[in-house]
């Protein structure tokens, strides 16, 4: 079994343990800002369990994916807001 997964966050390669969620990869790549709110404020995860939607990012071109409920996969492209 593979015990590490490599993916890219905002173009930056990052390696995380198998089973890690996308939120982990984003933090491991050094980003605190996951999304911008409707008035442009920086936001990151709040609930860690899929209910608040504060951790949503773009995964493989799909928008508004909750990073805390989505497992990392090899070669995944993750995009946060700037």
């Amino acid at each position, binding site marked *: 079994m593979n015990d590490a997964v490599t993916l890219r966050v905002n173009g930056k390669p990052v390696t*995380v*343990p*198998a*089973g*890690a*969620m996308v*939120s*982990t990869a984003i*933090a*491991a790549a050094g980003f*605190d*800002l*996951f999304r911008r*709110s*409707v*008035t442009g*404020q*920086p*936001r*990151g*995860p*709040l*609930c*860690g*369990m*899929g*209910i*608040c*939607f*504060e951790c*949503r990012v773009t995964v493989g071109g*799909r928008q*508004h994916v909750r990073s*805390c*409920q*989505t*497992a990392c996969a090899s070669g995944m492209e993750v995009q946060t807001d700037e």
Partner: protein
Amino acid sequence: MSEGDRSFDVLVIGAGPAGLAAACRAAAARAIVCLVDDNPRPGGQIWRASLDRVPGPAVPWIATAARLGVRMIEGARVFAAPEPGRLALETGAGEPLDLRYRSLVLATGARERFVPFPGWTLPNAMGAGGLQSLVKSGFPVRGKKVVVAGSGPLLPAVARYLRHAGADVRLIAEQAPLAALARFARSLLHHPHKLAEAAIFGGSLAGVRYLTSSWPVSAQGDGRVQSVTLARGGKTFTESCDYLACGFGLVPNTELASLLGCRVSEGVAVDDYQRTTVEGVYAAGEITGIGGVDLALVEGEIAGHAAAGQTERASRLFQARDRQRHFARSLARSFTLREELKHLAPDDTLVCRCEDVSLGRVRAATGWREAKLQTRCGMGPCQSRVCGPAVEFLLGWKPDSVRPPLFPVSVNSLSQAGDSGS
């Protein structure tokens, strides 16, 4: 999935302790059972997998469910109930899924309650259980300074977990007074096996300051949280931190139950057999009220037996449930939130994080209906799961009625749910 694969005698929503127990007991009575969870892995909150590893106490339940042929659907969430006996779901990949049932067991658990204060929306200020869940999935906290604050037995549990993961936990701020905690500790003497769990005065917290009658008043930082100011003994002090983990107790996830028409007061109302007020619909675990893992398990077992028609077996567990309910009551009494917490947020602090609505704008409305219409408070993707309990605590407004979809879903899933069958 074929037609036959989508119809079940007993459908269980939520694979935490309550849902797992319900599924196992119903399947043991030869019912055809399906267990669904939004999480990619079973276990719920307390038994959330650490990376791929499921915690010890969950293992036998998951193994039993598999052995008894329980159909497990992971990473799918229920978003609508188009007609009795039918639920509409969406998978993690965004695909619609339609499931049918004779009996339904709701075991959707609880979430953290958040109390707004200036700076609570900064990145890296999050829930206490929230940060713990992220760390279980490998979120890096080694060497990071963390302040844990809020209320309840979850705080020391989280602090212990974070320390184990290498975090530098600076302190725990519990808003309840020491006298209330001492009462709680005494009540644990009647439940000796819970003592180790609580660890409030336990050795594994040695070195971490555990302050009582202390709470966060503001968080500061540029683009992310860098410090938190806490109140204690009529004064305030500021502690620098990389993460602020704040949870003010738990609130039951009653949205799906409300959508189905079940009566909800504090949690979902149930009778002795865990039956809700809607025919064929049962509820078990923290959806019925906050009470911890042991109460969730026994309620799950009762609901599973009853949903499969084994009422005699269910009734043998009533006494065990009563003992656990006693614990739940002392928990609630000990960690009552203090009045001061209602005055942390000035009018410009955001209450609704989805639509960026300030407390002042919400307060100007006469109630939920008007606030929704005028400000869009509670209308964003979280569907007031975060601001709802906060507004209830701050302004005393009871939650508004629940409408589908319970979560934002794709147009495709919505239109499938609209079909009267397939």
